[in-house]
């Protein structure tokens, strides 16, 4: 009979979709993670006066910097305390977002 097979198919699809939706909802969206950065580094990470810009940074560089701040290898006034609040995955998401979505600037990195 086709009917139960159809129900099984629907159930199978739901089993796949619902956890995925829930897993997606469990992740902090990139825009919110980066929103935390922009609150100090300005919209688009452009910085202002003494506040350093982070726009257009290469993802690998930003990832390296954030990890160095977090473990104290790179000295900072406040960044260690902030970088420590983000997981490795979140730092990766932030770095990729900044690299992709902020205006690139000519930089010697």
């Amino acid at each position, binding site marked *: 009979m086709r009917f139960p097979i159809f129900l099984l198919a629907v159930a199978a699809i739901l089993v796949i979709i619902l956890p995925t939706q829930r897993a997606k*909802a469990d992740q902090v969206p990139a825009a919110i993670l980066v929103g935390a950065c922009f609150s100090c580094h300005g919209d688009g990470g452009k910085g202002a006066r003494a506040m350093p810009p982070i726009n257009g940074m290469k993802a690998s560089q930003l990832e390296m910097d954030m990890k160095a701040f977090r473990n104290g290898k790179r000295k900072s006034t406040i960044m260690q305390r*902030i970088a420590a609040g983000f997981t490795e995955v979140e730092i990766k998401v932030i770095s990729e977002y900044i690299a992709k979505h902020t205006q690139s600037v000519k930089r010697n990195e």
Partner: protein
Amino acid sequence: MSEFTRRRFNQLVGTSGVMAATSIAALTILKTTSPRIVVVGGGFGGATAAQYLKRFNPSLDVTLIEPNQSYSTCPFSNTVIAGMNDISFITQSYDVIRGKGVNVVHDIAVDIDATKKQVTLSNGKCLAFDRCVVAPGIDFKFDSIEGNSEAITQKIPHAWKAGTQTLLLRKQLMAMPDGGVFLISPPSNPFRCPPGPAERISLVANYFTEHKPKSKIIALDPKKKFGKEGLFKEGWQKLYPGMIEYRNIDEDGVVREVVADKMMLVTDLDKVNGDVINLIPAQKAGAIAFSSGLTDKSGWCPVDQRTFESTIHKGVHVIGDASIASPMPKSGVSASSQGKVCAAAIVAMLKGETPNTPKFINHCYSLLAPDYGISVAMVYGYDGKNITKINGSGGLSPFGRDVDFREREALYADGWYQSITQNIWG
């Protein structure tokens, strides 16, 4: 016109009238399919929520209601009080937010009806909403101190809402003779900007050191401890030795009465005079939160900390100082962080999706002098029920650092202010 032409004319007008009416009806239907969000309050929380809603979904119809034509920020208002900056330094315009497609209305919201889903303005106009964000800031519990009132603030300012109060306190300090006493009374917890009163003391001390060196500052605090206390006291010892007398609840009790005519504050144990008195009253949520039934017994607004939706009225979100968001402090940065999370949650909820797990941040710089800054920071997560501090993150600036470190933080404080106001108001 001949009969024929008139009849023909009427027919044409009639037809075009019907066509026009149909077009208008069609446009109206098209327009009302865009979800309407009304944001009440254009401060750090409301302005952030309004423009981030448009960022996350440009098709949303977003209206921001703010009584003031421009917004004076409390952050950095102490620099205006101390004469370091002009009031224009802390004044933010709504032009950029308007340019992002937010309809900015300069009026006061007098009622939010969660059942009818409409906001009523003081001019009588009603704005319908699908979701409402309320960011009204704080109001003062004037009756917590005998003799205090709204009227008294013209003589004894709180300067805890920036703008005219900021200028009033500045004027009073400028007029004070050398050798006078600046008497400041910070409020009980919870209140907007925990390190704010100590920053004010610091920058007024800086002004006195330069212009009125014989003057004194006395603080009467109803609490045992205050924000960044250790760092402030370390700095005061270095920068302003002998100028500041900070009396907490153990030393002088609590301020119970203000006698404005005598320029005096009465505590449990003492009567203290001041040439300039800054009385910062105990606080509660902004008035509209009360009149709209969004507050609980604490005087603040309980919310679902994932979405900041009111737990009392569905469809209405409360962010910023007015909301119960601890462990986040009541600060501009907290409000802005909540505004971003709330905007994202609303966009998801309108699509029928589960709102994402939020993440929040607070960072707050305080200036002890133009070249001496300190900071506090914290990153927050969400454990499925409540906002939580991320272990190992955040904290205060370290003790015992040299002048270079303090100067760097002062420079970052300035950059931070430029950045966050640009992030919010453009």
